[in-house]
């Protein structure tokens, strides 16, 4: 009997074959698309070599969605596009229509249901983000709430094309950076400012000392005997509050209601178009957590976005704009303060210095 059960159990089947979910027109023109046109921030059309036209209607999503949401979009897909749809790499929903006549009715229906159509072209893209207080144990802030607050404020930039180029915003609730924070046009990062508090009793039972020590980027953890058991000590002079030790050792919690918050970063980019990919750079070292609407953080993002909108030339990503005008002007225009926290002091810090007499006054 148990043998039989074992046999029936399905494992290692891997992902479903995507071919099953490609619409007929996509199957036919697979690899044979000729070009595309963006019709409006919610709609684009891909024209195949043979002239076939595939319309895409893109709809915003909070990513954390209910089964009802899923059924809603299924209804729409059934009604307008033979049931075919996809998600984007930034968690938007895309309806794939073969018939142009369905485009406007679909958009109206989505609007009626309260969904947001947009996100194509030179817009603020949907915010790549993470779990936050909804599901993670190491978060220095909530994720979905900050994202919602920012997107409410920047809503017009999702549904209308008003920007010099695409602006990708990302959010991560801790330095693990499960979101694309390390390389986004604007990034918001959950940030601790206090060293971990060690619970020695738990530590000696729960944690492996060598791997806890190895987890620290600044070598701030040293072994320490507590009674006759091996625990650790944190050098608070050098600890940079990264939380890496907590990840490997539950007995070193670092979250701190009063001292956790957000930092803001700009100028990251992943595409190789024109310039090489580059990391996001620090702008605002710290803003306290202000649930439920994170006013100051939202304002900081908006300040950056509007300075960019005003200053950048068409086609310039945020970093291209900043590098053209210079970082000193960026700080001047946005009013953020340049502090000692902005000067890199980690591994490749030396590579970030200004080895020249080039300066702007």
């Amino acid at each position, binding site marked *: 009997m148990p043998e039989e059960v*074992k046999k029936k159990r399905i494992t290692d089947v891997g992902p479903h074959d995507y071919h099953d979910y490609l619409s007929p027109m996509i199957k036919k023109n697979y690899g044979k698309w000729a070009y595309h046109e963006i019709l409006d921030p919610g709609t684009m059309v891909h024209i195949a070599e043979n002239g076939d036209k595939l319309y895409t209607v893109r709809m915003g999503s909070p990513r954390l969605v209910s089964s009802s949401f899923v059924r809603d979009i299924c209804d729409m897909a059934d009604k307008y596009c033979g049931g075919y749809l996809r998600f984007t790499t930034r968690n938007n929903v895309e309806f794939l229509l073969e018939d142009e006549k369905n485009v406007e009715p679909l958009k109206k229906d989505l609007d009626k249901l309260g969904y947001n159509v947009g996100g194509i072209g030179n817009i603020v893209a949907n915010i790549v983000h993470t779990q936050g207080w909804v599901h993670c144990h190491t978060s220095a802030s909530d994720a979905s709430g900050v994202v919602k607050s920012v997107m409410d404020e920047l809503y017009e930039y999702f549904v209308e094309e008003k920007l010099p180029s695409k602006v990708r915003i990302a959010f991560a609730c801790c330095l693990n950076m499960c979101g694309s924070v390390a390389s986004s046009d604007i990034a918001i990062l959950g940030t601790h400012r206090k060293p971990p508090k060690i619970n020695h009793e738990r530590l000696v*039972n*729960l944690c*492996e000392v060598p*791997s806890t020590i190895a*987890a620290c980027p600044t070598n701030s953890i040293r072994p320490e005997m507590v009674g006759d058991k091996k625990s650790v000590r944190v050098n608070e002079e050098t600890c940079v509050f990264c939380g*890496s030790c907590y*990840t*490997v*050792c*539950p007995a070193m919690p670092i979250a701190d209601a009063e001292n956790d918050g957000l930092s803001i970063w700009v100028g990251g980019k992943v595409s190789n178009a024109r310039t090489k990919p580059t990391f996001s750079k620090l702008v605002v070292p710290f803003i306290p957590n202000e649930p439920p609407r994170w006013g100051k953080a939202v304002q900081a993002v908006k300040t950056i976005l509007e300075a960019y909108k005003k200053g950048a030339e068409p086609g310039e990503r945020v970093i291209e704009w900043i590098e053209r005008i210079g970082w000193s002007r960026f700080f001047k225009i946005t009013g953020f303060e340049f502090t000692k926290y902005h000067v890199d002091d980690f591994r490749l810090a030396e590579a970030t210095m200004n080895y020249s007499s080039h300066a702007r006054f």
Partner: protein
Amino acid sequence: MTDETKKKLEDKIIGLVKEYAGKKRFKPIDIVKEMEKEFAAEGVSKEDIKGALKEIMDDGKLVYGYAGGSFLALPE
């Protein structure tokens, strides 16, 4: 690998995890490297050890834990 060696191997792996429970977390790769040395004479290969691990897991004798990296653990 003979069935006997296989049994020995499995016992050894489970024994190790038991013995060090709460002291050291074994990554599967540690076990594989360790057993490769230990059973070198018996001609046990990396693949054999991985296979044995898979069976131990499938039987629920050990499970995977996670804390900034996966490790082998006793089922709760």
